[in-house]
Structures are given as structure tokens and as C-alpha cells.
């Protein structure tokens, strides 16, 4: 008897909850449909207006006096605020408000833990509590929210000839257009990346010199050099690791068969290796080459399972001959100033970047580059139009010398001096405490800082690694040689569903292809391709081909 009551009760509750679920969905659909209609109609209006009079919304900093508008702006929190200040109350948030108050805008910062921004953003957007200016690195979310009618179309705030002038000058139309969907709606403001340099080859120059070898210029010469470094090590070391291909971005360009076809590059250039593995027949040669290195004992025998810290250990203990790593990996302070530590352990060691090899198929040089855009900022519909106007004005201010430049570089005389036309840090220690901890996160319109040109960036960055300036300049130069094939930002609709399974197959077969006997390689490669096909990678390919018009 009791059981029956319990069972029927549970069934009833279940049924009710299902009903609730349905009811909610049904009620939501018409609401969102009408929302997108209003967007469309207001767009037409503003489109008509711009031709005759000044734009409805004024978003160039200083062109409009607001009537005490408060905007809420997301701010990534890395828990690194120095004592005496918090992420939302410090010298720089005060500076922002001082400047924005001049045009009647107050900026309230909403801190979000950096690592969990996506989870938090999803909760906030879904519950309609997102800040007026919400940030993310995943464009697909921003585009999705827009398509569902949840965020503003910013084109009516930006596109007019008299709107957001500073933004257009600093970010530029090419980067701004990344934030547009196929209909031309601007769903977010994309930050400009100061440099798209991504990856480099690094080699133990001191070993090359002792062996009397030139800097390798193609995969075969690299093979010879590595073979000697490992088997006839000039320092008499045994068990040297040879090579670790930490990220194969540039090496893949060497073997690629599609690197010269811009559309094909876009189709497989989504930043997901597995798509290129499948789409680019040159990847057969890439993995075959790694297999050859592995079987000759000159590829780190467990490199695939190494953690990054262990990989770095290999470098600084002087155990590694060659690697492909992040563009400034050998001297980057953030990555632990590896070369400096290596020199402490092995005084005569030198670990330098070398020029990218020419493509083995067409003889031209291609390098891999990041996409030109950084993070994206968008405005949820919970913000009123005046607030959106103010948000865009805020971003426009960020693009000025008084705005982003100060937020990133600080004040002349206090944080930097102008030398050779670039801001040069006076006291790195002081800057780290005073402003560097917040500068990348509070500055929203550019990744890696406020720099008008790539050259400025290179010069300024080199000054941040004292004693290794030339290495930095060389790294950034080599990294962008030849034709740069940039990452793309587009995520095709079926990618999120399939990518987990595809990556499992990739992780599995990459190891197998690299570590199998040379005779088994073809079978492994074919199995891998078959597996990817089974999971459904063709759907992604056709979606991407359609998107890029192949």
C-alpha cells in the first residue's frame, strides 16, 4: 500500500515537472520571435536616418554628454590584486571613472573569476543578470546569444560615419568585422591582437656549432642534426631527448598540402587539430616524419604524455635539442625565462629560434598565426539602449591615448619613458605591483596590450626581457615569416557535439601513429581516418566548406 502511494506520487511529480518543462518552452518561443522583429525594425529605422542626419546614437568619446548613466562592465579577476586595493576598487578603476565621469558615465565593475568565465557567463546570461558589457573568448557563445535574440545588434551604434571614430581607427574594420554574422549584424566588439605570432622552432645552437653543423633549413637537415645531437652528443651526454614538438603548428605548415590555398586553410583552420588531420593530406607526411624521428630515438619517447612543466624541465636541464613551442618560449618571462635558467645549469648553452622551413610540396614558406581577434564584448538585452550607447562610448574611449594606452602602459615618467617611440618600462617591479596585474583585463579592446603597430609591440616586448632583447626581436620576426595562415574564429554548428569524440580518436591515434613501427604506419593512418569518418567529421567539413564558400 505504502509503496503504491509512493510510486504514484513520484509518477505524478514527474509528470508535473515534464508539463512545466513543455509549458515554459512553448511560452518562450513567441517572445523571442518578437524580440528579433524589433531588432530588425529598429535597424531599418537607423539605417534610414544615418543618411540624412547625425546618427541616433553617439558613441565617439566626447561627442555626447550622458545624463549620469551607470554601466556594469565585466572584469576578469585573477586574484592578484595587491594589498590595499581590490579588483573593483583601485587606482585604475578610479582612473576609468574619473575619465568617464567627464561625459556623464559611471562604470561599475563586476568581477568574474578568469578561469570560470564561461560557466559564470552562462548562468548570468540565462538568468538575465549579465553585466551590460559581458566578455568571452568563445565567439560561438556571443553569436549564439545574438541569434537567440538575447543581445544587442551593435551595428546601429558603430556603423554610422560619425560613430565610434576612435574604435574604428584603433581596432580597424577588418577586426571589427570578425564580430559580424553572415547578415552583417555586429554581435560583439572584438579586441585587436597586437601580434598574431604564434609558434617557433627552437634549437640548441651551441650543440650545432660544436658539431660543425649549419642551422637546419628543412626536415631532413633537422633529422641529421638531431641524430648527431642524440647519438654523438658534443657534451658527451647520454640519453638526450632530441626533439619535442610541443605544438606542431609550424611544422604542420611545412608538410601541409593545402597551405597555399587560403579557402582550404580557413576550412581546416579552426584551431582544432583534428580537422586539419582529416582535411589536409599533407598530415600523412607530418605524422610519418614524427614516426621516423620516434623510431630513430630522436623524439622524446614519452613526449605525448608530458606535462608542460616536465617539458620545460627538459629544456632547462639541457636535455633537449629541438622543440616547437610558443613564439617567445625560450625567453618569455611568463613561461619562466627558460633560457636564463638553462644558462644557470649549463653555462655555455644557447637555445635560439630558427627560421621556418619551406613547405616540402611547393617550396614556399608558410607560418601559423593566431586569428586577428582577441576577446569579444557584447551587450545583453537587459541593458537599455542608453546603457548600450554608453558602453560603446566606453570602448571607444579605450581606443584613445588617454584610455587604453594609459590603462596598459601607465603614465609617462611614472611607469615608462618614451624611447625610440615606444614606451619603455622604468621599473618593472614597481609596474608589476602598481598596474601590470590588472592591465590585460581592464583593457578590453586589444589583446597583449595597446600597440598601434606590430613593430611597436615587438620593440616594447623585447624591453621586458632584459638581456635577451635580440632573442625576442628574432623570435617575433621568424614566427611571422612568409605567408601567415591565421586561425579562424568560426565554430560550425555540429562541432560542439562531435568534437569530444573526435579528440578522443585524435589523442589515441596520434600516439599510435607516432610510436608504431614504420611498417604499421599506413594501417594506423588509415584506421585513424576511418575512425574520424565514423564519428562524423564529414558533417563539420561540409559545414565549414559551406561557410567559407568552398
Amino acid at each position, binding site marked *: 500500500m505504502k509503496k503504491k502511494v509512493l510510486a504514484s506520487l513520484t509518477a505524478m511529480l514527474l509528470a508535473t515537472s515534464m508539463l512545466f518543462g513543455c509549458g515554459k518552452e512553448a511560452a518562450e518561443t513567441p517572445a523571442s520571435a518578437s524580440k528579433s522583429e524589433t531588432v530588425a525594425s529598429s535597424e531599418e529605422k537607423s539605417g534610414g536616418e544615418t543618411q540624412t542626419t547625425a546618427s541616433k546614437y553617439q558613441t565617439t568619446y566626447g561627442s555626447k554628454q550622458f545624463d549620469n548613466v551607470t554601466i556594469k562592465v565585466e572584469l576578469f579577476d*585573477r586574484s592578484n590584486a595587491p594589498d590595499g586595493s581590490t579588483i573593483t576598487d583601485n587606482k585604475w578603476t578610479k582612473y576609468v571613472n574619473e575619465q568617464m565621469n567627464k561625459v556623464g558615465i559611471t562604470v561599475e565593475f563586476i568581477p568574474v*573569476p578568469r*578561469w570560470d568565465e564561461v560557466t559564470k557567463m552562462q548562468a548570468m546570461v540565462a538568468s538575465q543578470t549579465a553585466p551590460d558589457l559581458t566578455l568571452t573568448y568563445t565567439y560561438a557563445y556571443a553569436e549564439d546569444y545574438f541569434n537567440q535574440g538575447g543581445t544587442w545588434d551593435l551595428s546601429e551604434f558603430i556603423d554610422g560615419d560619425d560613430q565610434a571614430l576612435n574604435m574604428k581607427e584603433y581596432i580597424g574594420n577588418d577586426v571589427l568585422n570578425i564580430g559580424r554574422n553572415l547578415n552583417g549584424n555586429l554581435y560583439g566588439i572584438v579586441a585587436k591582437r597586437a601580434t598574431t605570432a604564434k609558434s617557433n622552432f627552437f634549437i640548441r645552437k651551441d650543440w650545432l656549432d660544436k658539431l660543425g653543423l649549419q642551422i637546419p633549413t628543412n626536415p631532413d637537415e633537422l633529422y641529421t642534426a638531431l641524430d648527431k645531437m642524440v647519438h654523438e652528443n658534443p657534451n658527451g651526454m647520454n640519453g638526450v631527448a632530441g626533439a619535442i614538438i610541443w605544438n606542431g603548428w609550424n611544422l604542420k605548415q611545412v608538410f601541409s598540402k593545402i597551405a597555399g590555398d587560403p579557402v582550404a586553410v580557413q576550412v581546416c583552420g579552426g584551431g582544432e587539430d583534428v580537422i586539419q588531420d582529416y582535411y589536409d593530406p599533407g598530415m600523412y607526411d607530418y605524422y610519418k616524419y614524427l614516426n621516423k624521428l620516434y623510431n630513430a630515438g630522436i623524439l622524446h619517447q614519452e613526449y605525448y604524455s608530458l606535462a608542460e612543466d616536465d617539458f*620545460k624541465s627538459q629544456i632547462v*636541464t639541457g636535455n633537449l635539442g629541438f622543440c616547437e613551442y*610558443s613564439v617567445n618560449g625560450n625567453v618569455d618571462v*611568463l613561461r619562466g625565462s627558460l633560457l636564463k635558467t638553462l644558462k644557470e645549469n649549463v653555462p655555455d648553452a644557447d637555445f635560439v629560434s630558427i627560421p621556418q622551413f619551406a613547405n616540402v610540396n611547393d617550396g614556399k614558406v608558410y607560418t601559423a598565426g*593566431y586569428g586577428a581577434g582577441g576577446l569579444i564584448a557584447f551587450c545583453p538585452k537587459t541593458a537599455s539602449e542608453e546603457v548600450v550607447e554608453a558602453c560603446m562610448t566606453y570602448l571607444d574611449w579605450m581606443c584613445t591615448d588617454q584610455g587604453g594606452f594609459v590603462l596598459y602602459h601607465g603614465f609617462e615618467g611614472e611607469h615608462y619613458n618614451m624611447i625610440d617611440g615606444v614606451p619603455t618600462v622604468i621599473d618593472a617591479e614597481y609596474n608589476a605591483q602598481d598596474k601590470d596585474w590588472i592591465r590585460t583585463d581592464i583593457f578590453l579592446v586589444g589583446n597583449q596590450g595597446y600597440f598601434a603597430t606590430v613593430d611597436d609591440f615587438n620593440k616594447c616586448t623585447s624591453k621586458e626581457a632584459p638581456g635577451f632583447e635580440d632573442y625576442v626581436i628574432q623570435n617575433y620576426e621568424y614566427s611571422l615569416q612568409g605567408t601567415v595562415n591565421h586561425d579562424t574564429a568560426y565554430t560550425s554548428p555540429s562541432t560542439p557535439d562531435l568534437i569530444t569524440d573526435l579528440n578522443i580518436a585524435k589523442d589515441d591515434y596520434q600516439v599510435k601513429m607516432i610510436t608504431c613501427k614504420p611498417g604499421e604506419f599506413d594501417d594506423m593512418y588509415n584506421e585513424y581516418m576511418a575512425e574520424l569518418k565514423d564519428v562524423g567529421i564529414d558533417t563539420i567539413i561540409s559545414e565549414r566548406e559551406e561557410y567559407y564558400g568552398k
Partner: protein
Amino acid sequence: MRKKFSWGRLINGLLLGILAFACLYPFLNVLAYSVSGYNAVLSGRVTFFPIDFNVDAYKQILGKTQIWMAMRSTVIVTLAGTALSLFLTILAAFALSRKDLPGKSFFTAVILFTMYFSGGMIPTFLVVKNVGLFDSLPALFVPQAINVFNFIVMRTFFKNIPESLEEAARIDGASYMKVLIKMILPLSVPIIATIGLFYAVGYWNTYFDALLYIQKPELYTLQLRLRSLLFGEELNNSNANAEGIGTQVMTQSLKMATVAISTIPILVIYPWLQKYFVKGVMIGSVKG
């Protein structure tokens, strides 16, 4: 009394020793890393013993006011949360363990239902927000004050206390409240210690709820703070959207010190409760 040497005992001892070592090693390694010098850490030379001993990492972390503020939030949540949770769980478990409570099976079913079906992240978020808990510490312990599993364990324990004890007290004129306070509770110390520890550890590790419900930096919990400290700098190299130049160097020692700081305080409580804990875990699962 001295026991005789035997191979069995030696092998036993060795095996157990190896097991104990295997459990201890990661922790020792973490501690050693957290107090070692930069070069040694980067070169991966540290195993059990610190190399170039220094406590810079701890200074760097514990020197931050925000860590202490986070520690305060966590302690408040842990104490208040554990107290509230125990209070409510005991009351609910006691009432629902009595045979003569009308509607008992209905309420039990309602409570059990929440174990299998939850409201989901967004609806819960909306409820928390609309009742005014958003961005306040009670949001971290009021909504999930009763854990159904803990409730069931406790109810089962109460059920196993002989009925005749309670009857005797009732005949002598004790009220239900008196029965609970004077008889049931003193008999239930092991289960209260056990469930209390479950709750306390749970609240100590509050992370995801804090991520969702807390916005003011000064109310961040320790785990949330440490996690953002730990991973905030790590994104630079992860993917195509890498941010490039970041802000500060995050060394391995700092990570390890973070791990140590987040685990040690709760580890310290363990030995005090252990005797109850061992006993308590068995009770509730074994009838008899």
C-alpha cells in the same frame, strides 16, 4: 611482550609500508615543491626533500589580504553551514524516524525526490536571486542545508535506537523534544560527528556555488580564491585564443603552496574526529 619474528609479519609490514608511502608520497612531494627554489622546481629535481629551502611561495600567498578575507568567508560558511545543516538534519531525521508521525511517507518521498531530480543550475540560480540571497554568504549554505543522503543515514541510525528506550521516557512524562535532547542525541554522537564532518568538508570545499552566487570579491570563498589564483595565469598557452602577455609569473611552488594551504586546515580536524568517524561510517550501513 615481544612478538616472535616471522616472514609473514615482515612481508605484511613491508606491503603496508609501501602502501602508506604511496599514499603519503604525493603529499610530501607537494610540500617539498612548495618550499623549494625556482631553479630546482623548474628543472624538476625535487622529490621528497626541499632543495634551496625557502618559504617565498607561502609568503606570497598568505601575504595577500584577499586570501585572509576568503579564509574568513570559508570559516563562516563552514561553521554556520555545518551548524544549520546538522540542526535541520537532526530534526528532520528524528521526526521522520518516528513510526507514529502522520504523513511520514509523504514527506520522506518529497525529500527523496530531490535526491533524484534537481531544479537545475539556472532555475536554482533564479530562486536564490529572487529570495534575496544572491551575493551573500547564506546563499552558500541555506539552499542546500539538508543533504538527502546524510539525512537518510541519520534517520536510519535513529531508527535503530531501541524503541523501548523512548517508550520508557515517554511513560515518565518526557516530551518529544526532551526525548531527542536527553536520549537520542547522547546516543548518537558518532553519527553526529560523522555527518558533521561530511557537511564541514563539503562547506570547506564550497567552490561552484560560490562561483555562481557570489559577486563581491570580499565574499569569495577560499577555494574560489585559490582556484582563480592558481589558474588565472595559466591560460596563456592553452589555445588559439591565448591572451599572450599576462601579468605575473606563476611558479610550480606557488601552485603547490596553494594546494597545501587549501588542504591542511581541514586535515587538522580529522584526527580529532577520527574515532567517531570510523565508527560512524559503519553505522547506518550495517543493521543489527
